[in-house]
């Protein structure tokens, strides 16, 4: 009924999202529902997972190796929650078009929604676990303040960044299914390369600029600023992330739009 000519620019994406907002809502809630359907602990897994991480990492890096980070659990949790959103979203998102093969090419389904859904559903997960994070902050007598106002900006930047990347990955993954494995490996590596469980100042100076050129590293450090240092994230680097993310979304969506027809044929 709605015949939208594929327009390889992000505003078209925005229009589409707005037009299909109810469907998007339905799909995100379906995604959340299905994830926990049939599991006993349900949403608790979203909290349990980083909690276990926290316990182990605190033991290893706080007690054994003595990183010397004060209130290490707070530091770790402030970064790892957002990382979990990123990693899970990227992993599921990369195979999202393949997993949605019952829709793509068989009904008048806007396949871009499939890509956006894992970003949003994991964002919701992240949002739900925020009270838990805040509780931990207060448990260790740390403070939260005005920097918290920038949290939505960070989240928006992260959502955009993920969406942009996923348009590339999800589209390419239809044609090259190895990409799924590749993304998995890269995510594991990134977890260690990005200052999530260690502070950025342990990175030697020559490597630091490389690490900080990574938008997701910038975002993680941003979260740490808000929740651990009670400090405003670096605005310039945030702006940098936004620019990168916007370019990625535009380019990724253009590529997706270019291959949209072929997706149905391949699936």
């Amino acid at each position, binding site marked *: *009924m*709605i*015949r939208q000519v*594929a327009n390889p620019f992000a505003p078209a994406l925005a229009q589409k999202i707005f*037009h*299909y907002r*109810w*469907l998007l809502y*339905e*799909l995100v809630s*379906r995604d959340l529902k*299905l994830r926990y*359907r049939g599991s006993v602990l349900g949403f608790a897994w979203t909290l349990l997972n980083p909690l276990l991480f926290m316990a182990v990492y605190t033991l290893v890096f706080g007690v054994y190796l003595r990183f010397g980070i004060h209130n290490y659990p707070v530091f770790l949790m402030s970064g790892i929650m957002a990382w979990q959103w990123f990693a899970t979203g990227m992993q599921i998102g990369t195979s999202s078009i393949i997993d949605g093969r*019952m*829709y793509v*090419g*068989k*009904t*008048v*389904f*806007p396949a871009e929604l499939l890509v956006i859904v894992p970003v949003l559903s994991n964002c919701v997960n992240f949002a739900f676990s925020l009270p838990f994070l805040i509780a931990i902050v207060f448990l260790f007598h740390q403070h939260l303040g005005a920097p918290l106002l920038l949290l939505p900006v960070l989240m928006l930047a992260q959502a955009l960044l993920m969406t942009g990347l996923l348009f590339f990955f999800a589209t390419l993954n239809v*044609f*090259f*299914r*190895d*990409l799924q494995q*590749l993304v998995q490996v890269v995510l594991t590596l990134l977890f260690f390369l990005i200052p999530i469980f260690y502070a950025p100042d342990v990175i030697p100076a020559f490597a630091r600029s490389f690490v900080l050129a990574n938008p997701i590293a910038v975002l993680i450090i941003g979260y740490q600023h808000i929740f651990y240092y009670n400090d405003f994230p670096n605005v310039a680097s945030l702006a940098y992330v936004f620019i990168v993310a916007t370019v990625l979304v535009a380019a990724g969506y253009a590529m997706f739009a270019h291959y949209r*027809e*072929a997706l*149905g*044929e*391949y699936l």
Partner: protein
Amino acid sequence: MSAISAVDVVKRFRHLALPKQTTLKETIVKRLLGGSRNRRSIEAIAGVSFSVRPGQVLGIVGRNGSGKTTLLRLLSGVYAPDEGRIEISGTLAPLLSLAAGFHPDLSGRENARIELMILGFSPKQIQQRMDQIIDFAEIGEFVDAPVRTYSSGMMMRLAFAAAVSVDPDVLLLDEVLAVGDAAFAEKCLACVDDFRKRGKTIVLVTHSTQLVRERCDVAMWLDRGKVAAFGDPVEVTDAYYQAAKESERSEVAVQKRKAPLRTIVVFGNCQAEALANIIKKDVLVQSRFRVVYYPDYETPGQARETPTPEELNASALLFSQHGPDPFPYFDQLPKECLMVRFPSVDLNLLWPFNCVNPYNRPKPEFDWGPFPYGDRIILECVEKDMPPDEILEYYLTGWPRYKPDLNRLGQLERARLETRDGHCDLKMAPWVMEHFRNRRLFWTVNHPAQIVLREVLQRLIHASASVDPDLQDADLEETQRVYFPAGEQLSIANIPIHPKLAEELQLEWYNPHQSFEVFGKVYSYEEYFRRMIDYCVSERAAAAITAPA
């Protein structure tokens, strides 16, 4: 003003020519090696133009792969045309394929919600329609069960109900009415009629020409991506039907020409050869089978005939006198080849032998002498031109005149059996063979061999029915009439003989005044003869084989 208009629509599939699962490595390696990117495109729709007025029902027919579904997907907007344009005025609801758009883990209700949301409805609008959908689909409490638990009929009910609830201006239906029970199909058709009355447009892809004739205003016959005919439903479906029939006929003809005749392998001694010759004469058999006789003995001075591999491959039936296993090429027979076995002793029981001329035996270890009976009795019968009943009588009562030495007969037979392997010991007299060929011998007595023959033929017909879809019931009836005039139904092809029974027969051969004790029962010869025949064709025979000795 048309509801649907398509102008010179072309849709190519570029990617289908590529292997479906490509890996990054393969692609990189191919690029590096400079291999050509094999991108042949397939024109699924090759320049289709048509228009449908509002309120018309368009029926699309065509063979599988002719592009019907692709065209419907183009109309629905799932695909965009590579060339040409499609215009649709008003809202559109496609019902493209059953499971498409249904997530197996979600409930029917959730899937219907998503389905409607795909079509652009808000939750509020969906809420209004949900009850209607559930009512129409009639799937009861299943509406809240995961769709993976649905039958295809239920899936179709839900999909149809959801599509109809949209109340679109244009409804696209792809072969969905074929699923589901008659009652629901009727409901769907009533719904289609209702749509039509209200001036809505429907496009219906179907294989049912009847449906097109009854419900459609216009019809399109799609052939290899092109419109072969468009217009009056009756004319279009007629043309389609004729063409389909013709191509089917030519295909069948091509297949027939290609398919070699199936083989019937007959394996055994001269008795089997006689049967083979009779089977060969059958017209029905001739049209479908090549009968190959393969002797189980060697004729001195002659090369042994062997079946060719082609004949063996095409075997539909092995008719073996001595069981299937001794057949030297048994392993080369196809699995579906049927086997009919009859033990030699059955035939020998009453078979008229001419053993006067056992020729060229290299080392006679036994003085064969003449067989004093059998063929002579038959000869008398034939010369007197007796009717079959009398021959039976004569045969059963007349042979003692020849005063056979029963002990000697038993020794003869045993010697024959012992020395048979690798040698020709017996040859049926040519005149006996002649009578076999003329079938007269088989009408002389109700001979087990005759029963075997009937059985073989019946098996043949069944075997050929399973390999030959052309075989009509009338052919079967005709065969039944010719070979089974009394209407017998025979059920055992593998006629069993208990070893103990065979042993007793050898010892007490052909004495009408002697009674037989078999399995604890006493029979006169004639009784025994009758019972033997019954026995050969009865279910009990199968049971007897496992009876305690």
